[in-house]
């Protein structure tokens, strides 16, 4: 029985630490996603009419940009929910 309690306490503490870790990086992760989005958007700006960096540079970077393009694509899909995400992050309900 005490073993079970100990395990529970351990699990609770682990969960607590996890959530603490999560909270501490939540802003960073949001910022990172935004930066990755901006980076991809800058390179692919021609699509939306933003002036683009040198074409050669864009073409050279594209093969390495899987992640950023993925983030940008997700961003485009979840466009209307940015406010929701921000509200969630700042615990506005």
């Amino acid at each position, binding site marked *: 029985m005490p073993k079970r309690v100990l395990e529970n306490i351990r699990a609770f503490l682990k969960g607590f630490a996890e959530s603490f870790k999560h909270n501490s990086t939540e802003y960073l992760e949001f910022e990172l996603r935004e930066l990755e989005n901006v980076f991809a958007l800058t390179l692919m700006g021609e699509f939306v009419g933003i002036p683009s960096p040198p074409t*050669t540079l864009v073409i050279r970077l594209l093969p390495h940009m899987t*992640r950023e393009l993925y983030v940008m694509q997700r961003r485009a899909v979840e466009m209307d929910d940015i406010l929701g995400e921000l509200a969630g992050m700042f615990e506005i309900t």
Partner: protein
Amino acid sequence: MREFFLPKKDYRVVFFIGKGGVGKTTSSAAAAVALADRGYKTLIVSLDPAHNLGDVLMEKLSDKPKKIAENLYASELDMEKLIKSYLKHLEENLKHMYRYLTVINLEKYFEVLSFSPGIEEYATLEAVKEILMKGDEWDVIVFDTPPTGLTLRVLALPRISLIWTDKLIEIRRAILERRAAIANIHGEQEFVVEGERIKLPTKEEEDPVMKELKAYRKEVAFVESVLTDPDKTSVVAVMNPEMLPLYETERAYESLKKFRIPFNMIVMNKVFELKGKVPELKAKLEAQERVLREVSEKFKGVDIVKIPIFPEEPRGVERLRELGGAIIGER
């Protein structure tokens, strides 16, 4: 001989610029012939999409340097072919990597890219860069350029590209810093796409995007350093004694100054000289006189060479030789 034609550090790059139809190709070919004659291993490259360097030299040219005479090599760059093959190669690479990205229709993107504004300038810059990187093979590289507008934009590109690249490096650095911070807390981060796991790079040395950015920056900085070095690059403007070419030369002079690219000389081509008096040509001669006066007032410290109009266009190495001597200056 004018010293801005002499190779001082390894090699010399000479750009002949000017309005369409003033005789850039003839002057540049003549200068190249004369330089080759004096024992400098010379390459003349035509960057003009409307090629006529081959016509002037009376040889069929391609994008590989062809030996025309002792020490003289010539080539014509085919921009359209260059752009097409460049994009084709990349499209294939990218198609393979991005097959899952359906939102971005790559085929359409490339179709747009080949017509996107500026692609020609970038392709020209790429070509110039490749030639400069192998510059040590030559003593003198002469560029016969497209009309002023396009050429000025090409010469301005390295500076603009550097500004862009620095900005992108800054954002990239911010991304990597945040990734590293997150990885510190959560451990290594992975990114899963279509079942493939990709580790997210957090260090500058292992991030392919950063590596590419830095490699590009280095290449562009190299071109910029060559173009702005008065011991390596000189620009020769070709013009006719008329008002419009004068205005254009002035504009070129100002913008080259802004980008710190040395402007050394004006070749005043097709100057009318009459022995007798022809009343019908009086107005024309007066206009010419006015332009010649303005040029010598406005471009102080710039060499000016007058080339008389020839009854026939000089074509072929033999006939270019004499003209070239006048341009580069006698021994």
